[in-house]
């Protein structure tokens, strides 16, 4: 096994992996789409939405927030090429996945629960977006690809390109994407404030020092402009990210020794904007900044049956979010910091030990210890919070610990099972500790942080059974998590809201516990070489100790695809079914969401001439033009109606 990319599994069959990995199709691949990548111009979040255990919280057509099961932003670790990046927006408009395009990526991996803790403490797991590294080959080779697409519904134009030069001593890769879309339409109406525009450029240069050592420089820049968020009272005026990293790789196959060291810096500027909106009571500016510096070193070595992997990492993050309001009657402008200038410093060490007991049986232990210090800078931001009775200029220190134990056994008939027991902790986020009147449009409350929050703890058990046997492959992955000191909201009685029209103020507290359980299932069947079927199923059940369903829990979902290859053309018929969600959290402003059944059709063909390839793909999404929204769509804004798409790809060698 078993990368879960089953239909197109790479030759990655070394040892059973628990990670879900999606490999982004490279230019050379003739196929225009696969189960995860609906087209070569599918966005990062579209790919994520099809991954096992991943659900997306949607605030606008772009910038959806990936969640692992029902664990969202603060509970999971969303990293880019192993780097810690914190979105700048206090309203979670910029989960860091928004700053990366699939053309920059080698693949996306998701590790659920405590297993994901090797790279950073979290209770929900880890999603890593791995950069595509330039290749080095024994002879020089050039590759240029250009992909263009057009979507009829929102007149979306996307263009991406990649240029690669691979040589014996170095490799260079420049890639980028430009996307521009107008407002989209649901079957009933045009959704206002849903247009967006963004440009992404990435440069990677790899240099071979000697047969064991390589060094790689990466730069990624992403510039978003006028990105609409119909579910929120404001849009994004600008969202700019710069990500720099320098990576050193050492590999000595003879000694079974490997090391990867990275230093990185990233900064994000994000500004919300209401100038496009109508009937706003008062104009306001809400800029925010996030800046992170960090490093990590991963070391792997193997002595006979004993596999060791260690990771030492550290980072420092600075966050700030401001709000300036301009009363229309000429009163003095108003200013506050919705997130006081605050710092997180972290140093962590993780160790993993795998004991290969037999060829088909191993055990793995994973431990991580983190030190965090969090504080706010003295000034207006901390003065504001002092009015709430907290001194946040004092340093808050936390140690988070996590442990997991995996027991993995491969039977005959390609059957494999794993048992995972885990314990994990996570730090309360800056929003949860220091946020100051952050408006949540779902429940209509302003949220004020609670600096005294304790860490959230999670006891976890997961069982994974998989089979890859002849034409059949399937997996079943049930889990149960008992989360202690769960961070949950409560109403601050007698507190005024700040936002005009808000219903009141809320804060966070640790409640006794909340439980999350569910399962992910995949099923694949190869009827013949030209007819294949692939599906995944997700189900979640989560509630507090009082039996209140947790908010933002996706209902049962089925995503299936039937692939037929005839006449050198691939056809794919997709069905996305989502059951109704009736277990809702009304405190959070949730409403019941009905079920829906979505059908998409795709077709693609490639033509090759003189080593150059031309690809054409056509698609119809939401074929029956149904009106629907997903349960995790903030504001329950209807999704896109029927949408025709065309994608053209040129690959020049």
């Amino acid at each position, binding site marked *: 096994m078993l990368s879960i990319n089953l239909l197109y599994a790479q030759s990655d069959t070394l040892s059973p992996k628990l990670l879900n990995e999606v490999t982004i199709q490279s230019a050379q691949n003739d196929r225009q789409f696969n189960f995860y990548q609906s087209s070569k111009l599918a966005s990062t979040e579209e790919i994520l939405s099809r991954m096992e255990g991943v659900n997306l919280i949607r605030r606008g057509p772009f910038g959806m927030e990936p969640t692992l099961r029902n664990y969202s932003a603060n509970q999971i670790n969303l990293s880019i090429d192993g780097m810690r990046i914190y979105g700048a927006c206090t309203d979670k408009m910029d989960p860091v996945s928004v700053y990366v395009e699939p053309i920059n990526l080698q693949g996306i991996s998701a590790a659920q629960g405590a297993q994901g803790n090797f790279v950073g403490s979290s209770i929900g797991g880890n999603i890593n977006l791995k950069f595509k590294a330039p290749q080095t080959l024994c002879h020089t080779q050039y590759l240029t690809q250009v992909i263009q697409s057009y979507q009829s519904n929102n007149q979306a134009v996307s263009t991406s390109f990649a240029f690669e030069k691979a040589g014996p001593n170095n490799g260079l890769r420049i890639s980028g994407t430009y996307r521009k879309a107008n407002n989209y339409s649901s079957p009933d109406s045009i959704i206002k404030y849903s247009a967006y525009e963004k440009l992404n450029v990435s440069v990677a240069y790899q240099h071979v020092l000697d047969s064991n050592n390589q060094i790689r420089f990466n730069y990624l820049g992403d510039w978003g402009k006028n990105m609409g968020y119909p579910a929120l009272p404001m849009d994004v005026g600008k969202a700019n990210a710069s990500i720099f990293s320098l990576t050193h790789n050492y590999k000595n196959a003879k000694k079974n020794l490997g090391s990867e060291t990275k230093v990185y810096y990233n900064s994000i500027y994000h500004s919300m904007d209401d100038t496009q909106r109508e009937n706003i009571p008062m104009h306001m500016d809400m800029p925010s900044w996030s800046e992170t510096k960090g490093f990590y070193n991963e070391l792997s070595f193997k002595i006979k049956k004993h596999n060791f992997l260690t990771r030492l990492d550290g980072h420092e993050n600075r966050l700030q979010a401001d709000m300036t309001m301009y009363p229309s009657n000429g009163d003095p402008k*108003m200013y506050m910091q919705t997130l006081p200038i605050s710092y997180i410093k972290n140093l962590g060490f993780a160790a993993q030990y795998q004991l290969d007991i037999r060829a088909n049986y191993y055990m793995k232990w994973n431990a991580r210890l983190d030190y965090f210090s969090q504080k706010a800078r003295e000034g207006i931001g901390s003065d504001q919070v002092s009015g*709430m009775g907290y001194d946040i200029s004092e340093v808050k220190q936390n140690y988070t610990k996590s442990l997991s134990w995996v027991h993995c056994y491969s039977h005959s008939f390609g059957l494999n099972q794993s048992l995972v027991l885990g314990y994990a902790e996570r730090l309360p986020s800056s929003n949860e500790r220091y946020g100051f009147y952050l408006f949540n449009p779902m429940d209509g409350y302003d949220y004020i942080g609670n600096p005294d929050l304790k860490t959230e703890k999670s006891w976890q058990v997961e069982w994974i059974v998989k089979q890859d046997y002849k034409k059949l492959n399937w997996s079943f992955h049930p889990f149960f998590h008992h989360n202690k000191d769960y961070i949950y909201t409560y109403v601050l009685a007698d507190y005024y809201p700040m936002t005009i029209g808000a219903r009141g103020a809320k804060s966070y507290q640790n409640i006794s516990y909340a439980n999350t359980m569910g399962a992910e299932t995949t099923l694949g069947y190869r009827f013949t070489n030209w007819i294949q079927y692939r599906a995944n199923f997700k189900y979640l059940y989560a509630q507090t100790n009082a039996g209140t369903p947790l908010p933002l829990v996706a209902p049962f979902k089925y995503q299936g695809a039937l692939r037929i290859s005839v006449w050198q053309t691939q056809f794919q018929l997709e069905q996305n079914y989502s059951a109704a969600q009736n277990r809702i959290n009304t405190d959070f402003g949730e409403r019941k969401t009905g079920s829906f059944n979505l059908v998409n059709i795709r077709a693609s063909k490639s033509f090759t001439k003189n080593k150059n390839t031309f690809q054409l793909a056509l698609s119809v999404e939401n074929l029956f033009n149904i009106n629907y929204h997903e349960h995790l769509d903030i504001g329950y804004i209807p999704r896109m109606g029927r949408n025709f798409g065309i994608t053209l790809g040129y690959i020049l060698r």
Partner: protein
Amino acid sequence: MKKLYFIIAAAIVLLSAPSCKKDTDETTTPNNNTPTTPVTPDGMVKIGETYIIGAKAKAYIYAKQNLFVGYNTIYAAMYDSADGSRLVDGHFTLGAEMDMGMMKHSCPIEVNEDIDATTKLYSTSLVFIMPGSDMAKWKLSIAYHNHKIDMEGEGEIEVPVVAATPKRLVSSVIALDDSAKVFVSFVLPTVAKVGLNDAEFTIHKMASTTDFPAITDYTIEMTPTMPSMGHGSPNNVNPTHVANGHYVGKLNFTMDGLWQIDLKLSKNGVLLKDDIKFEITL
């Protein structure tokens, strides 16, 4: 002429008595021991100066800002009018009178005869209840009992008093309290910051044109709001009476901008007045 005489006299005294240097360092320059106008203390403005005839003293009057309608504290540095030395032993009494031609009246005054040992300044707080004008001027009278020579005297000085923007004083006739004319002044914060601020108000009433006693038995309900947004703030503490008509509480401002502070006054559970408003901009 008087001033010149004073300077010459002081110079002679100082030159012939170098041992006085210590006491007079604030009034002399290091080079020639000539008494000059004292340096205005940091963070204050000079309001005026006057001789206290009879006490052989001269008063230099300061305040933290130009005098305004509302609660002011007036500071005085007393000097020996003959040798220019600082006077620190004596009783100081400050009075205020508004002369409108047809009538005269005083204002609420918090008598304080004693000196602050560290700053060597006398101080008295008072509530100017109306602004001065060309026709009607505020006059401060300063009486001083100079213990050094055991002599008393009085001086007078006209001072400008302007209306404060935003206003720091609300006057109101309270029908339910024997139709008393009541003055509510907004003392603190003078400069507000985001977060918790000390809030202080004084309440006095006019018993006669010369008698303005403190009201000590009101209860205050205080509500800060941002009028542009219509929201308030949590964790405010209603001011309660501390002493001499001073009511102290806490004001929490959650952001910069214009805040409105509404006060409701009650006495023995009876609401007297519910439309007292102050504004402050952060």
